[in-house]
């Protein structure tokens, strides 16, 4: 039995210690917002937070997270102090406002990577966004909007910082 905090609640998994966290979350905890994409840590669809940092849950064994804090897309809004009455995290709000998702399958992972970035870097530059987001593949090609949404969310999170000069030139109009 391995116990850890899942979205703020204690969760005990009676499973093989080497079972990847992704399948603990999906098959045992029945939280399906975290997606399976590659099983090798190559695409980022399975990204969750481990003590606030973005990790690939498909290659993280259960025994590596004992006693640690895991946050999934379902728990993201309550992990932020900046939630609005709609209970969406500012990154989620920016995603909706920018019509980021297309098929949407990778977006939980993209949002978890983006929110982990903003938690440590309130006003990332384009270069910093590129570095933080390069592990997350989007086959639909929503990258220009992901970049714009991260800049927008940064503005919401730190309204006093002028992020205009960081704005990407990747989106026209």
């Amino acid at each position, binding site marked *: 039995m391995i116990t850890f905090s899942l979205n703020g609640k204690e969760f005990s998994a009676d499973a093989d210690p080497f079972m990847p966290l992704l399948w603990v979350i999906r098959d045992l905890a029945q939280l399906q917002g975290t*997606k399976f994409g590659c099983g090798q840590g190559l695409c980022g669809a399975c990204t969750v937070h481990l003590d606030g940092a973005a990790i690939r849950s498909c290659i993280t064994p259960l025994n590596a997270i004992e006693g640690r804090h895991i946050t999934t897309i379902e728990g993201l809004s309550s992990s932020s102090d900046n939630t609005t009455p709609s209970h*969406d995290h500012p990154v989620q709000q920016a995603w909706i406002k920018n019509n980021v*998702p297309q098929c949407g*399958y990778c977006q939980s992972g993209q949002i978890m990577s983006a929110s982990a970035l903003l938690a440590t870097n309130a006003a990332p530059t384009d270069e910093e966004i590129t570095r933080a987001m390069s592990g997350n*593949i*989007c086959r*639909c090609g929503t*990258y220009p909007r992901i970049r714009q949404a991260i800049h927008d969310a940064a503005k919401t999170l730190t309204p006093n910082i002028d992020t205009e000069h960081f704005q990407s*030139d990747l989106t026209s109009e």
Partner: protein
Amino acid sequence: MSTTINRRQFLQTSGLTGTGLAFSLSIGGCANLSRADTAHAWQANAWLEITADNTVSFYLHRTEMGQGTMTGLTTLIAEELEVSPEFINVKTSSVHANYVHPDYGLQITGGSSSTSSSWIPLRTAAATAREMIRRAAAQRWNTTIDNVQIADGKAHFKDISLPYGDFIDIAKHLSIPTVSLKTPEQYSKIGKPGIRLDAPMKSKGTATFGIDAAPASCLKATLVRCPVIGGTAKSWKTNGAQDMPGVKKIVEIHNGIAVIAASWWQAKEAAKAITVDWNMPPFSALSDDTILSGFRDALANNSGKVARDDGDIEQALDDAEQVIEAEYYVPYLAHATMEPMNCSVILTDNYCEIWAPTQGPDIAAVAAEHASGLRRNQVTVHTTLMGGGFGRRLNQDFVEEAVLIAKHSGLPIQLIWSREDDIQNDFYRPSALVRFKAGIDKTGNVSCLSHKGASPNIMPYTFKEAAGAVLPAWLPDGMVKSIASLGPTIYGDVLLDATSVEGIADSCYQFDHFHARHVQHDPGLRVGYWRSVGHSFNAFFMESFVDEIAHESKQDPYSMRLSLLSEHPRMTAVLKSVAQHAQWDKTKAPSVFQGIAVHHSFNTSVAMLAEISIENNNNDRIRINKIVCAVDCGQTINPDIVKAQMESGIIFGLTQALKGKITIRNGAVQQSNFHDYELIRINEVPEMDIHIIDSRAAPTGVGEPAVPLVAPALANAIFAATGKRQRSLPLSLL
């Protein structure tokens, strides 16, 4: 515009009225609907249901896989129903004859055609429901129809306003009126920026994809497969797999050994222990070099089928002052949808229920029918959201596998493919080899173009799966299978497969002498529809070779295209748009170069320009600075989704142009996951400048038409920069 609709989707255009066409939906009666009226709910037609508590439901008959069809088609309904798109409760339609695609005869989502084929029927359906509410209100308020206004989801008369739901009891007994559709100046939603209806659920992790749709009772299954597609197990050993944690059963199906366990990871772990001796399929000797030599032999030895024959090509080539020749080649490609193939099945002796992320729910139903041995009316298909489709989910092999596993195990299961399964068991974008010849006359103008291509046709593979969905359900199973097996013969020896030559045979270029022919040559690796299909390679071939002609005949590539497209105003407009926005005719910095391309596909014209620079400080590596794109897709429904689809198509096209390559050794696909089948990532995305031509014409495709342009625009820019013509994909930036 005015239209009538009967309660089924069949549309009758009843003629011109003062403002335009009159339409009617002809309804054969409630018997033709998949849902029946109840005391609480009115089934206005195949798409719309309004309940007494004023819930307006739209039964979406095309599948959402990222292209935005959920938002777009709901907007068409909202426009004529006078409600906001967000107010409409979008449900997924069942498999039913009412929802068959008028162009394909199948209930499929593909060909960038959901909007264009729904443009008249859905607006007519909504306008008809609206007018029936108006008539019902007039009846209830004992006034004339003209005295009732419909706005904001309510009927208004004098100072009374009541929601639609208050009138359903009267409306359901009314006859179907002929209606007029709004003219463009009356649109309040069509063509206006709007939110994506699926953005909130996809940003909160609450959207249900196929992989999330399994009922709680389903166990998880994985399949041990032959390294070569089509191989079957000669013998196999479990080596203790059946005793591993969570494992419930191990069964053999036609193409492998299925392991069923409580969790998918347990099934995968147990599968590693199983050893199989395989019967290899005939093409297991296939390798990349034999594929290419096979295409070369096919071009040399077969005349193929004529796809286009304008003028007299032989004479024109004889008369030419100069003949330019070139050979182009593209590899096989995988779709690599982010959500791997999966399907959930509950199967009993007389009932089969499946949950599948599929672009063809009726073809999925046939696959389930054949695999289960049940009858069509005993199969229920639940279509889910899809983590990408790109054509891959038009094939239902994963449904067949899942139903067979459920049948042989007697267990409710969800089959989930691994990424390795996905990359190595695709229906691949065909590899193709073509040869061009062009003649330049004494005045330096291009007089003729000759094309001969060799590639495997896709239709035989489609025919095999889809035949059952278009043939009557009462035909015996054996007869359906034997008709389905005719595909290779019909499309190999008798018919030309239009998708193999699309983009060339139907090119807009006006050459006086224009000849195109196709040799069907199938090396054996199965093929399927891949976002933009034949255009994905034919635009690269054609637009690169046209560029060669321009350079060889010392013409400006942009001006020469304009003169060859003078009778195509939409192509001309998009070409001019990109040239203007990218300042084609202005002098560039010495290290900056541009390439241009234009193509017409899915009834949409797109022009694209790639601007690159040579990085002297980085071993002269080529950097892609910017992609400029102009599109004419007729009337936009949601312009931001059109823009998103251009961005999406450009990035998909960049992966094709710079990375995509499936290689074969001994019949097996050598790539397996994203480390060796790479996709474009955020660090590789250039600036994009997208322009949508303002148009009131009927809408045309947007999901695919940007994809084909990226490779030729880039290849042409690379030639401008280096003088080297790259005639195969992927391109090298070194």
